[in-house]
């Protein structure tokens, strides 16, 4: 467990900014408690400082997880967001997509979101923008990247993909072994 290096921080924040933009500052400067990002076995954890301090007692091999895992660095040095961070990024998300009940299960099985399943979209979402996917009952289901801007999707046919799948909460079941 160690703080992120300069390079790592940059890669990580760039990725994070795709979803929550400048709201990253809300993650770092919190009113209640000091929180920090820590790297442990290639994974980035977001955890309060008090918990982090206590967790230093745990040996490196025995420490499995602390706080919330945001994602991991791949071997090529890129950062990959995990669905586990959904709680936080849903809270600060700038662009959202709501999908209809009949589109929930296909998305939770790891499919892209097609236009027919879209219920609502945040206005002015640009192309290739990270978005959070919600069900119509406002349960965050995952996140993805838009294939077209909001205005462009209007002209598309119903079967066309609007949001590329990045992560969904179905991964808790599907990828339990590899996710953590």
């Amino acid at each position, binding site marked *: 467990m160690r703080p992120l290096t300069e390079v790592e921080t940059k890669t990580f924040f760039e990725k994070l900014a795709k979803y929550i933009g400048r709201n990253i500052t809300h993650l770092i400067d919190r009113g209640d408690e000091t929180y920090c990002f820590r790297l442990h076995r290639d994974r980035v954890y977001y955890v*309060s400082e008090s918990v982090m301090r*206590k967790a230093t007692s*745990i040996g490196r*091999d*025995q420490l*499995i*997880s602390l706080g919330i895992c945001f994602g991991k660095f791949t071997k090529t040095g890129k950062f990959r967001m995990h669905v586990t961070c959904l709680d936080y990024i849903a809270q600060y998300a700038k662009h959202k997509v709501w999908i209809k009940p009949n589109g929930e299960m296909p998305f939770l099985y790891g499919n892209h979101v097609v236009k027919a399943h879209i219920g609502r979209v945040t206005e002015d979402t640009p192309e290739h923008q990270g978005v959070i996917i919600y069900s119509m*009952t406002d*349960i965050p289901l995952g996140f993805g990247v838009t294939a077209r801007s909001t205005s462009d999707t209007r002209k598309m046919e119903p079967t066309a993909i609007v949001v590329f799948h990045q992560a969904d909460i179905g991964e808790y*079941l599907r990828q339990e072994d590899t996710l953590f």
Partner: protein
Amino acid sequence: MAGRPATKKGAAKSSPAVSSQKNNKRKVSASTEPLSKKAKVGAKIGNGKLNKVVPKSAEEDSEEDDESWAYGAVSDSDSDIEERDDEFVSAEEGSDIEVGALDDDFLGDEFAESDDEGKAPGTAMFGSDDDEGEDEGEEDEEDIFASNSEDSDDDDDMETKSRKLDAAAKLEAEEAEAELQTNIMLESDKYVLPEDNHEILQSTDLQVVQARIQEIVRVLNNFREMREGDRSRNDYIAQLLKDLCLYYGYNEYLMEKLFYIFPVSEAIEFFEANEVPRPVTIRTNTLKTRRRELAQALINRGVNLDPIGKWSKVGLQVFDSPVPIGATPEYLAGHYMLQAASSFLPVMALAPQEHERVLDMASAPGGKSTYIAALLKNTGMVFANDANKDRTKSLVANIHRLGVKNAVVCNYDGREFPGVIGGFDRVLLDAPCSGTGVISKDASVKTNKSEQDFQMLSQLQKELVLSAIDSVDAGSKTGGYIVYSTCSVTVDENEDVVNYALRKRPNVKLVSTGLDFGKEGFTRYREKVFHPSVSLTRRYYPHMHNMDGFYVAKFKKISNKIPKKMDDNVDLDEEEEFAPSANKAGKRTRGGKKTEEELEKVSFNADEDEELIRASQAKLLHTQKGIKLRPKKSEGTK
């Protein structure tokens, strides 16, 4: 007839019991009936007294007698049940007529009869034999049916009179009863226990086995009266255990272990309950939603559910669901956790308060840990430990899914605490156990647990509970509690472990679990006697509470100081659990062999132990980082 209302009342009172045992009575062979009648008549004549009114007690007793020979008759001729049934019908009809006729007779002189003690023997005989009726099993039944309809005619005056007479006739009746009993004993046949190597034993026909189980249970429930000759209780129990093993598929060791926890008929209920799955229950994750909202969302998906009971505000019981309950979007979003009702209990007993630091020593797959976090409302911190690295994956997944943000997951052997980190406000130890409470979930327990497994488990549990106790900071303002729980019902994994902890750590005491239901823990079990406060612990059984078999004990740590115990007797007692014949010299080597760190740490009774202890304490303190109570502890132990 003054006696009549009273006796009727008695009959009415006992009627539920009688009707419940009707089946047994039906089997009474007609051939034995006249004999018993004769016997009773003989008894009364021999008594030389006029039993106009047979008191209730006598009636009831004689009823029992009847039943006892009823069983005898059944076992006597197993083959021709149908035949006997027929016979019985005819007997019934016969007695019906008889009773009716006699009733008419009585209408004439019932008052005279009741008031006059010195009546002619003939009439009195009739009166006692038929009007009061309950002397005999068959007519008893008839009389009840008749009297139930007539009850409304009862006169209060007559009742009081009859009560007086009841008292007056009590003595006579007792004598009569004594004779009755001896007479009946002569006539009755008991359930014949099959001999060893008898062909019945070889048969694997489950119906035969079940019938035999029922018979033996009945005999055991009223052993004095129904035993066969001089067969001992052990004979019956040995046969019963064999049959139960065969019928329910347990291995003999486990069967014996479980059997003695319960009274006989309850044990059967327990085994029966283990064959039935428990209801599916879910726990609302209060970090993300509320129970009402969750219930609504699930009902919209067609799930049929209900609150789990008054004792839990977050539990829901699922009756049936058209969708897999473990894969709904709500589940994936972490709005609920699939969790057995029983595993709510230890967390409710632990009752963590906000801003506390809590350790869950054996936490995978995280049902209880996430419940703790939910009660903490994501304040403070939860250390979720599990010794099995593979299982930590599901633990981490559940912690993230349920949105627990203050958890640290680690992979230590629980016994390494508090060496890793100590000073917790509360510790939950849901110890690894044999799983005898969850046989309905995992039936493999029935066969794959041997004596050795149980020994290893209780040894491990004892070590873990001491670690758990040592990991708690008694000085905590809000906490200082330890909850020990298992999903097992055996005594050596539960009360025995708790008792051990109380002896080894005099600085803890048992406190009420705060759970308002469940059975009290045993304070004594077979040859073992436990500390009286063990009754504060709680047991849960599948047949009683419709949840998995479970055990919860809650300790409060009073001080961080482990008082030295110089009492040799105590130490010897403790040692006996592991090695009955171990002397002091052998003890140290045994302890070393087993690497009982905890034992070594505490069981100092000789001077040379002192050095070892100091050394290990020093080592321990070295490994403890960031623990504030270090000076206190070292003071306490040195």
